[in-house]
């Protein structure tokens, strides 16, 4: 693992560890409820109800980063769960279902009061039902209507014209469902939901994402990339799980200021940068060193991932007269924009041009079938835009079949034959 270049990265990592420790204390010592959520669930509603929330994907990335995932996956295999089932969304479940198989980070997850998931992929209902059952906890499902109208340049509508982004019937359904969720949260917390507080929170989320937009611009326009992709992710995701909170906004600003200082001082993540790479797909959590492995040898630096870039385009909603509708419009199609045609390919090519990308590595996820869709459209669109593509076949949390040396050799060859010519 490369050493951290930014002080804010160290602070973000420390915050997450501290936050999780506090959560465990509140749950075990003070018997407070908490919730386990899919990453695309509106966390704001839980926070406003006083119910802290842990992201399934974040927890999976933590287990993978601590090199504990293979043990849990072996336990899944031994229990008869075949190897083509999604491992990313189910690693957290495995850490609960097979507690003796491995050592989950920081003492493991306490029992949540509630699990909540959007039913995007078909497997989510299964995984979360099994997980809720393993905990003996309640599950709230947010169904996922399909989009019939498909505005291509969605990121141009999201901020000001979000009512046009989602068809009225889908928006109304999502509002109703979120209202039902709020009723459950009120019942659990014993606290009345405050719509004004939601509006204020979404305004703060907007401010936070505006700050990330500024960071994105700094990275896109600086002569050399000022901050590694891995450090972008750490800083962004630590704040996204508590977005709109005082700490999140303060940290986002501190991150932006540090990046600005580096740009002003001409400090680059990889001085003498020769190739600017983008990573398309979820992060390779079990081998994050992969992303810095080509800096000294080829002066190739990963500049872009969806984690920073999606914040401003996916979250900002102006015009908060009806905050629940604004939140629903964000939730309705959330992660589809990252994977599916027509949205993903158009956005990724747009981002690649903005960031002067010279080569794209596109994840071919081994077991995450839904996240693997749309990939051929994305690869083709990038190539048609003149950006060479290298597909990387990997599972983002399951390292068992990952040959890091072979993958690195493939990237070196890609750089030498297609990017640095």
């Amino acid at each position: 693992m490369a050493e951290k270049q930014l002080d804010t990265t160290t602070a973000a990592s420390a915050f997450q560890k501290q936050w999780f420790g506090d959560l465990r204390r509140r749950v075990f010592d003070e018997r407070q409820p908490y919730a386990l959520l899919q990453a695309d669930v509106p966390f704001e509603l839980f926070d406003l109800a006083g119910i802290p929330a842990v992201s399934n994907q974040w927890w999976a990335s933590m287990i993978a980063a601590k090199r504990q995932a293979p043990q849990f996956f072996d336990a899944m295999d031994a229990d008869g769960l075949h190897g083509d089932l999604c491992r990313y969304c189910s690693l957290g479940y495995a850490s609960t279902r097979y507690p003796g198989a491995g050592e989950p980070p920081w003492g493991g997850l306490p029992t949540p009061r509630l699990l909540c998931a959007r039913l995007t992929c078909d497997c989510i209902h299964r995984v979360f039902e099994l997980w809720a059952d393993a905990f003996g906890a309640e599950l709230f499902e947010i169904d996922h209507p399909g989009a019939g109208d498909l505005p291509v340049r969605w990121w141009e509508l999201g901020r000001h014209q979000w009512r046009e982004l989602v068809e009225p019937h889908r928006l109304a359904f999502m509002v109703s469902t979120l209202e039902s969720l709020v009723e459950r949260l009120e019942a659990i917390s014993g606290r009345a939901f405050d719509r004004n507080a939601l509006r204020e929170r979404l305004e703060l989320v907007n401010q936070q994402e505006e700050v990330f937009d500024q960071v994105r611009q700094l990275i896109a326009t600086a002569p050399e990339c000022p901050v590694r992709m891995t450090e972008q992710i750490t800083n962004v995701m630590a704040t996204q799980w508590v977005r709109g909170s005082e700490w999140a906004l303060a940290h986002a600003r501190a991150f932006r200021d540090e990046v600005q200082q580096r740009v002003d001082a001409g400090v680059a993540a990889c001085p003498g940068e020769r190739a600017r790479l983008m990573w398309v797909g979820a992060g390779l959590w079990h081998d994050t060193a992969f992303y810095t492995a080509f800096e000294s040898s080829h002066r190739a630096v990963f500049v872009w991932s969806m984690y920073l870039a999606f914040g401003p385009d996916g979250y900002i909603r102006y015009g908060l007269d009806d905050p629940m509708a604004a939140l629903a419009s964000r939730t309705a199609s959330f992660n589809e924009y990252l994977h599916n045609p027509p949205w993903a390919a158009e956005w990724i090519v747009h981002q690649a041009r903005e960031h002067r990308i010279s080569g794209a590595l596109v994840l071919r996820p081994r077991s995450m079938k839904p996240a693997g869709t749309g990939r051929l459209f994305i690869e083709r669109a990038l190539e048609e835009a003149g950006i060479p593509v290298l597909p990387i076949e990997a599972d983002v949390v399951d390292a068992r079949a990952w040959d890091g040396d072979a993958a690195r050799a493939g990237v070196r060859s890609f750089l030498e034959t297609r990017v640095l010519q």
Partner: protein
Amino acid sequence: MKEPFVIASWPSVPVEIVRAAGFRAVFVRGAPGPTPTADRHLEQGIFPGRLRHLVESALTGRLSDAARIVIPRTSDTDYKCFLYLRECVRRGVTSALPAVILFDLLQSCGAHVGAYDAARTRALLDELASISGRTPSADDLRQEIVRANAARAAARRLLAFRRIVPRVTGTEVFPLLAAFWELEPERYVAAVDGAASAFAKRSALRGPRVLLTGAPVDGPELHRAIESHGAIVVAEVGPWGSGAAGDEVRQHDDPIVALADKYRADAVGARTPAASIRHWTAGMLDDVDAVVVSLPPEDAVFGWDYPALRDMLQARGIPHVCLRGDQYQAPTAEEHAQLDAMISTASTLQEARHG
């Protein structure tokens, strides 16, 4: 003149709606054979064979006579297929494609799902009616429901020849059950009545009774493989076989609400609540001697049910085999050996039970 028809990717599109709007419903099913044009756009190992063949046919102009292609939201891969086909049109990959529409039927138990489904069912009817120029009244819809319910009753008569003491093999009866979706109800009832008369004269079939579960199959190839070992497939999960009839569409003031409710609850697929499939499977186990679980390579869903099912089968002493192959390909020699061993065990248990 050729009868106007609508292509649908899975039998969760209400045939009553399609017929009331003046169309014949044609449902896509998989087949062996290459799909080179579709393979340029559909990632490997994700989409089932029926969708690969649908996209192959669509992109090579073989569906140009259809009035519409209707894709239901009852699986993620179907929904992605809708997005892909629309993208292929947008990118000019094909121009000979009828309009592709999404039937956004949700299947979760959320409080607002029923009303949403009813509205989407009404939107589907409006869309189809706008093409045919035939706007059916509520009574027209009720008439279609009565016709389809009569066909459902006929399908249930077929199921009676499979339960307890089977008189018909799965290989034989599966196509008859599947025909529910495409034959005009009156023709279907006549065909079933003819077959039922013949089945009634048969003596009971011998051999262990097998339940085929896991991912729903849309053809009898696996039945044939299992029955080649001397067993009888007496039930299979999914809308093409045992689930073709399902419950009748209930009488309701608003026939659209009744149809939406029926298909949400009854259309078995990847987004059917797990508890519903568990309940159905548990209900079948009293009358079977062995279970085959089909989990093809593209399965992302039904494999999650396997450990609980295995535990239930072990607790009840019912042997089972898990097959991971494509339903359109012949099982491997190893899978045949597993089937043979399972059926041999089931035969022994069956003989012990019945003396």
